[in-house]
């Protein structure tokens, strides 16, 4: 029963990262690195020696594995190009999010393990952002779950096709903000910085090097693609194999196009904004929380 859709996420997630970077570069008037650059980065990191802090305990060694594997396990729960056969037929969205949270839990702990202020700072901020993002994301998902009558991703993907109800529009807006926050992008976090004052994700990973860093980075790419895929399943699943529309054989094409669209939207959103000061985040994320709350109320009132 276990099918291999998740390999798509495992193998193509660095490519998606490369594409986003490329579009970002274009929209900022740069040429940018090739779309395959993230692959080369990973290969380079896997080939390097590691430097590990003497202060660090076994948690520091375990965290890259647990982070990577939790994202991998979560990838198995999501319908990528076909609604059939996600992890033994059970792709539950709540289980998916909490499996991802397991990875984050250990990543944040690893930030505290080396005993530096940078790591602690990154961890503290990541935990705070999670507090603001998770409920909002969960509410947006509840709203789609009520509309679709299930929390199983396959069922939800079958029930949507293309978002059409006002509740879905609101939920999508909230979910998009959650995507930005969860993937560590501007205006929440800056993925390209190593400046102490602004970094969140990079701060936690500061002590990592070599293959551990490669695992962490790869996990981050996968998480990004995974969440994009969840967004596709929840809001525009049109053309997914096993659904009512389109040819099953074309579903990879549909999927690729939808990913490209999301990648472009993300790149443009990132280029057109400045990073927010950390304590201005609540207004952005709180706003999205209100959107998802409205979405819930809409779905209750209208249907």
């Amino acid at each position, binding site marked *: 029963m276990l099918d291999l859709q998740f390999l798509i996420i495992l193998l193509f997630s660095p490519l998606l990262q490369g594409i986003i970077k490329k579009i970002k570069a274009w929209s900022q008037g740069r040429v940018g690195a090739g779309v395959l650059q993230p692959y080369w980065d990973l290969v380079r990191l896997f080939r390097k020696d590691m430097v590990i802090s003497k202060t660090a305990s076994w948690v520091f060694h375990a965290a890259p594995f647990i982070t990577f594997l939790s994202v991998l396990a979560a990838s198995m729960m999501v319908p990528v190009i076909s609604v059939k056969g996600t992890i033994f037929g059970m792709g539950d969205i709540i289980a998916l999010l909490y499996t991802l949270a397991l990875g984050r839990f250990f990543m944040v702990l690893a930030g505290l*393990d080396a005993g530096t202020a940078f790591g602690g700072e990154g961890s503290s901020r990541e935990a705070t952002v999670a507090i603001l993002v998770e409920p909002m994301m969960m509410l947006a998902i509840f709203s789609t779950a009520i509309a679709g009558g299930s929390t199983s991703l396959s*069922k939800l993907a079958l029930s949507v096709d293309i978002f059409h109800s006002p509740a879905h529009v609101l939920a999508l807006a909230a979910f998009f903000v959650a995507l930005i926050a969860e993937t560590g992008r501007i205006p929440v976090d800056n993925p390209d910085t190593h400046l102490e004052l602004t970094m969140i994700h990079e701060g936690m990973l500061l002590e990592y090097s070599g293959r551990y860093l490669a695992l962490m980075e790869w996990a981050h790419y996968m998480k990004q693609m995974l969440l994009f895929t969840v967004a596709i399943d929840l809001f525009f699943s049109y053309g997914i194999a096993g659904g009512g529309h389109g040819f099953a054989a074309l579903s990879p094409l549909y999927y690729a196009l939808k990913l490209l669209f999301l990648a472009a939207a993300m790149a443009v959103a990132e280029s057109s904004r400045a990073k927010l000061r950390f304590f201005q985040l609540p207004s952005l994320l709180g706003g999205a929380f209100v959107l998802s709350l409205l979405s819930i109320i809409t779905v209750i009132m209208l249907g």
Partner: protein
Amino acid sequence: MEPGNLFLLSGIGLFIAGTVLFSIAPGRWLNMLYGLFAAGSVLAGLYSLGLIMPSAQPSPVYVFPVSGFLELAFQGNPLSGYFSLLLSVLGAAVSVYSIGYMKGAEGPRFQGIFYGLFLLSLYAVFFSSNIVAFLVAWEAMSLLSFFLVVSDTRDEEAQAAGITYATMTHIGTAFIIAAFMAGYALTGSLDFQGIRAGLAARPEWVRSLLFVLSFIGFGMKAGIVPLHIWLPRAHPAAPSNVSALMSGVMIKAGLYGMIMMGIGVLGGNVAWWGILALVAGGVSSVMGILYALMARDIKRLLAYSSVENIGIMLLGFGASIMFYSFHLPALAGIALAACLCHAMNHAVFKGMLFMGAGSVMHAVHSKNMEEMGGLLKKMPWTGLFFLVGAVSICALPPFNGFVSEWLTFQSLVLGSQTPAAYSKVISLLGGAALALTGAFAAAAFIKAFGISFLGMPRHERAEHAKEAGFPMTAAMGALALLCLLLGVYPGLLLGLISRIPLGGLSAVSPLSFSLAPVSIAGGFSGFWPAAILSAMLLGFLIVFVLIKTAGASKKTVYADSWDCGIRALTPRMQYTATAFTKPVRVIFKSIYLPRREIRISYRQKPFFAREITYRSDITPFIESYIYRPLLSAVHWTAHKIRHLQSGSLHLYLGYIMITLITLLLIWG
């Protein structure tokens, strides 16, 4: 005699033998006597299992006449069997832990006797089948735990906490007595079954009154907000083995009371009772975890997190009543299963966490997390088990917390299938509260583990910490394994829960589960924790082999942490627990109302400071804005009434005369 009853009687016998031996045995061997309590718990646990099993005959009633028509009656049923199983699991582990923990403790005889009796009184609460027995057991439980809380006579904070606890718990008991007396007055029966039968014909408002009274009374013991203020004081003040029992089991006695009264006796079929419980649950879970996040005292953090978890259980309980009142018994079953499942899971991991905190306190002689740090290297086993507990309580798969939290989420989302708009909105807001709680809990327990166990030691004593002894780590290890087992095979626990009938309500009925996967009938959803775990294990093997073969020639260098070139990172430069939560304190300042006080004394103003004192604290919202005004109102009234008591004989004679005349005017 039936084997089941033999288990019960010999279990009780062991408890009594234990308490007696505590008063006469030689001092050196006292801590070993906790082994008797462990054995007694195991036997009582076997009896409890028998109560839940389907083939069980109606269990025998044990009646002890007191005087006239007053009698103490005890009878087990599946629900009480489940709760006493919960008690037995934790009681056995904590008793084994106590063998190590109480070694060389002060006042060992007193501690041991009260500990044993406390366990017994908890069993009595779960097994009592009439009002009198219940109240006696309840009061014994409260008093014995009070004495254990104040057992450290030199700790003034513990003494104050004890007073708060005693006051609050007795106010709660008053409400319970009121509810029970009303039940007796209306039906003429002392027996819970009799009251149930007698009340069935009564109008709804009578039952509602009883529900509210018992909800407040039991809610006080369960620690729901705003009745919780004693809990974060009393639980940390007790010795850690007792804290584990108080947070792991005693608050569930409150929950048991609510379920037994609310659903078992009163029928549980009025929608707004469910709404009340849902609102109380949502508020408790969010407020509890908000304050847990800010705690610097590791046991206080755990105690506040108990408030949060009782809130999660109430979400399930409330949803269950709400569904039942809308004639959706299938959904009510899922919600009640979520509640019961979380009660057991919470007992397992919270007990373990309190034991871990106790081991840490033994090692570093402080409850303050700012004085710990780096303990994982000094106490590897305690650290590992504390981490397992932290992961479980944050509801991360594949550990047990996730199973019950997933079920709670499902029942709240299914709230959208109720007919009324208000119930839909409330249950989804409950879902939002639960989601918020999840993220906060992760932050709180990352802090609890990360600040205490990771990084560099922040204090000399943490540097010289030693691992806890074998019985202590063994007890924690057993519970850690249980966390994993119940997480990977949720069917073990759900199978038990499915056998608990409650009035017309059977928990779990539409939940289909085999040993490993769980799913909700009608295809709403499902998940399979064993598959998640095995996928991760398989993935680990592959990644590990890949890394080992690809990176075989690569070196790993151990060096200092990156220090920006200053060459001397000190423990004081690490993030502290206070610093870790600073962003949250700033963002939620309208709830926390943080206070900050900086005092600088100068040698030469303004450049040469002699001393800078910095104090930062948060204002406990509920204490300051509900209890303090209430207390001052009571004081004010008392002050005014005092004028009546002038001490003058003439005035008192005047009072008597006025009273007489008034009485004569009324009845004359």
